[in-house]
Structures are given as structure tokens and as C-alpha cells.
């Protein structure tokens, strides 16, 4: 297996863009990545696109060649990957495996979602299709309510408090306020976070990520060729994808995500590092409880300690291991199909020391965790300075 490097990244702002269509967002991110990596479209040998629900959100299918040809990428394999909110994390995993295995040398991986042209109720309905539509979703659940049930059980089993959940929202909003590309650049107080309108008890509006439009892209090459393109390559040290049940009620214990643990353990092993070595992370905070559980499942803290870990500020930008310096899905935004590669973009910015006001001092080893549904897919990627 060959070592792989990221040589170029690009991203649109995340937000609500009524004048932009899906393809124009993906093309903007792709063109930025080409420019950033000093690569011409004709050099791309394979294209992967992560997208969750283009057909439902905007009525367009066959999205990979629809986007790649608009980028001037002609004739090569163009493949769409769907894995709910982990669609582009999974696309990144598959793009990486092509380069690592030697099938192709120069691969573009992108992710895109255009969500804001639909009502919130319609968006909830479409997102619900990532759950088990023959059971849990038929009962009237939403993704917020599934994660609310996870939060309730976590609170019951470990004494996690509402204040712990809200602390995640306060932190990620503080980070997002420093990110010029974030959907919501608004600092909030703990009191505001605690008293927002209920969505699914115990989760309120500030416990939920945003409904956003956006796209992100990255270009992968063998590490040995990386310096042909850039003097700032970033190395893929470890990466793994894992899976689990789609329906929550099939799991023995809903306060932990086996797919996160499995992907994390494999990625750590590949990178030859342990959780304590990870200096910073972009974690999948689709809901505040998800970030808390991710810090436990990835071994940053023990089971049940994720709530206090966040509340005590240890994951703040100035804490011992900053989590979601981008603002996370909570404040940066969550165009679901773009989120996985968006996280890669954020790690690369920190590692290259290009994160502006969000730049952290220890930034040479970062981890991204991209979760699909209520834990049925997880991709964990560890990046480091090359």
C-alpha cells in the first residue's frame, strides 16, 4: 500500500444560498481545490462525489458525471457515494483507497448538498430516509428525536447534564464566529443555549446542527509525488470506515457507536498513534450529544466522561485538545453530503497554519470523524504534516 497525501483543498462558504444550484456549489469547491493543488482538470484520473439526497432535495440524479464534466474532468470514472451524513467521508475513504492501492495517482474527492430550497418539515422527512423507514421513522421519529433518545439514555446511565450538551453548542458557536465561511457566526451564552425552543426533549434548537447548502473538495496523490504539486502536502496517516445497524432499536447500547470505535481503532493502528497523541479534531456534532459520545468512543476520555470533558472547557479552542475549531456542524453548517470533506478541509487549514483567527498552536496531528445516520456508517481520518 502506498502512502497518500492531500495536495489541494477547496470549499464554498456554508449557508443558505437561494441563488446557487447544487452543481455551481460543487464546481466552486472543485475549482478551488484544483487551484490550491496546482492541478489541471485534465490531470484528474478519477472523481468521487459524496452526496446524500440530491434526487430528493433538488430533483437531480446521476450526480458524479453531472458535476465532474462541469469541472472539465472528462472521460474518467465518476462515482457518487451515498452514506447519509458520512457520504463524503466515505467518498474520501474510497478515493484514498484508489491512490493507496495504485489504481490511480490523481483523484479528486468532493461532497455537496443543496438543502435550503425545502421547508424544515420536508428536510426532516428527507433526512429521516437515512434511518429505518420500516420501523423507527414510521413511528414519527426524526434524526433529532433519535439523538434525543440517545441523550436521554446517556444522561440516565452516566449522569450527563443538559448543561454539558449546551456547553458543546456554546463552544462551537464561539469557534464558528471566527470562521468567515461559517453558516452562523453568532456567539451564544450558556443561558441562551439552555433556554432555546424544544425540538425533541432534551434537545433544543441550539443542540441541533444547521440545514445548509455547501460543497467541499480535496485532491489526493501518492505521497512520493506530492511535492510535484505543492510545498504544503498533508499526509493521510490513518483512515478507516466501519458500519453498524441502521435502526437504533437493534443496538444493545445506544450510548456508544461501535462503528466509531471500530473505525477509530483501525485508523489509530494504521497511523501508529494513540488517542492521547491527537492534538485536535473535527468531530461530527450533528447534535451536541454526538460530539460528547464521539470524544468517548475515540478514546479522548473514558465512557460517560464526555459531558464534563466538554463542560470544563478541555475541548475549547484554548483547551488541551480543541474540538471543532471550525465551528463544527453546529455553527459552520451541515450540508450533509459536503460535511466529511469539509472536515478534511478544516484539518488541512489547521495543519498548514492557514486557519486565521481560529489557528491553534498545536496543529500537526488532527483527526476527523464523520458519522452517517445514528451511527450506521463512520469514517475516521487522521491527517498530519508531511
Amino acid at each position, binding site marked *: 500500500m502506498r502512502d497518500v497525501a492531500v495536495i489541494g483543498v477547496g470549499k464554498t462558504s456554508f449557508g443558505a444560498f437561494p441563488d446557487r444550484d447544487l452543481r455551481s456549489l460543487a464546481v466552486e469547491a472543485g475549482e478551488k481545490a484544483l487551484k490550491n493543488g496546482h492541478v489541471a482538470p485534465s490531470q484528474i484520473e478519477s472523481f468521487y462525489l459524496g452526496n446524500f439526497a440530491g434526487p430528493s432535495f433538488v430533483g437531480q440524479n446521476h450526480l458524479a458525471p453531472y458535476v465532474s464534466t462541469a469541472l472539465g474532468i472528462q472521460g474518467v470514472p465518476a462515482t457518487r457515494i451515498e452514506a447519509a451524513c458520512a457520504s463524503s467521508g466515505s467518498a474520501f475513504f474510497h478515493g484514498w483507497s484508489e491512490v493507496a492501492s495504485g489504481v490511480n495517482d490523481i483523484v479528486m474527492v468532493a461532497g455537496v448538498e443543496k438543502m435550503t430550497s425545502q421547508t424544515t*418539515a420536508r428536510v426532516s422527512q428527507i433526512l429521516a430516509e437515512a434511518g429505518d423507514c420500516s420501523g423507527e*421513522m414510521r413511528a*414519527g421519529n426524526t434524526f433529532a428525536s433519535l439523538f434525543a433518545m*440517545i441523550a436521554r439514555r446517556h444522561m*440516565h446511565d452516566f449522569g450527563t447534564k443538559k448543561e454539558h450538551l449546551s456547553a458543546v453548542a456554546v463552544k462551537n458557536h464561539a469557534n464558528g464566529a471566527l470562521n468567515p465561511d461559517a453558516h452562523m457566526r453568532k456567539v451564544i451564552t450558556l443561558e441562551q443555549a439552555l433556554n432555546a425552543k424544544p425540538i425533541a426533549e432534551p434537545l433544543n434548537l441550539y443542540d441541533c446542527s444547521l440545514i445548509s447548502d455547501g460543497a467541499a473538495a480535496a485532491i489526493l496523490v501518492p505521497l512520493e509525488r506530492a511535492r510535484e504539486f505543492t510545498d504544503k502536502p498533508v499526509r493521510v496517516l490513518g483512515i478507516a470506515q466501519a458500519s453498524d445497524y441502521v435502526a437504533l*432499536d437493534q443496538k444493545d447500547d*445506544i450510548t456508544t457507536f461501535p462503528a466509531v470505535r471500530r473505525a477509530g481503532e483501525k485508523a489509530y493502528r494504521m497511523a501508529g498513534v494513540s488517542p492521547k497523541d491527537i492534538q485536535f479534531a473535527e468531530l461530527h456534532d450533528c447534535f451536541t450529544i454526538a460530539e460528547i459520545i464521539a470524544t468517548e468512543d475515540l478514546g479522548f476520555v473514558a465512557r460517560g466522561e464526555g459531558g464534563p470533558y466538554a463542560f470544563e472547557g478541555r475541548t475549547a479552542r484554548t483547551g488541551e485538545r480543541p474540538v471543532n475549531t471550525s465551528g463544527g456542524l453546529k455553527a459552520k453548517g451541515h450540508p450533509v453530503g459536503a460535511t466529511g470533506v469539509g472536515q478534511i478541509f478544516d484539518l488541512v487549514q489547521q495543519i498548514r497554519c492557514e486557519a486565521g483567527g481560529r489557528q491553534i498552536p498545536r496543529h500537526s496531528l488532527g483527526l476527523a470523524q464523520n458519522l452517517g445516520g445514528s451511527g450506521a456508517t463512520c469514517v475516521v481520518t487522521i491527517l498530519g504534516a508531511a
Partner: protein
Amino acid sequence: MRTGTVYTETVIYSAPEAFVNEVPYQTAIVALDGGGKVTGRIVGDRVQIDDRVVEVEERDGVPFFQRK
């Protein structure tokens, strides 16, 4: 009818399209006495984790439970 214990629950205020006229409503995962878990709706009084419940009807494949 099936009986069980509430494993977890939530009350939903923001519903998907098909359920917007029913908010707020409670859903739960129930650990069945016969083994396994099932996701259903709660009717009557609100329930909490560890409450005992009994299935009172099934609509469109969805079990409806009530506090026992």
C-alpha cells in the same frame, strides 16, 4: 398484548412532514419482556426510562404503548 420497559424516550416538537399535525408527541424504544427492543409511540401519560408499558394497539405497523 406485548409488555416491556421504557429503554429511552423523547417528546417531539419539530416533526417530519407526515407528522406535523400531531406535535407534541412521545416516541420511545421499549425493551420487550420477551426479548429485543422495538420503537413505538406512547399514548396517554408521558413515560420515563424504566417505566413499565403495555402495547395497546398497532397502527400501520407501529406499536402504541401506554403506561402500565
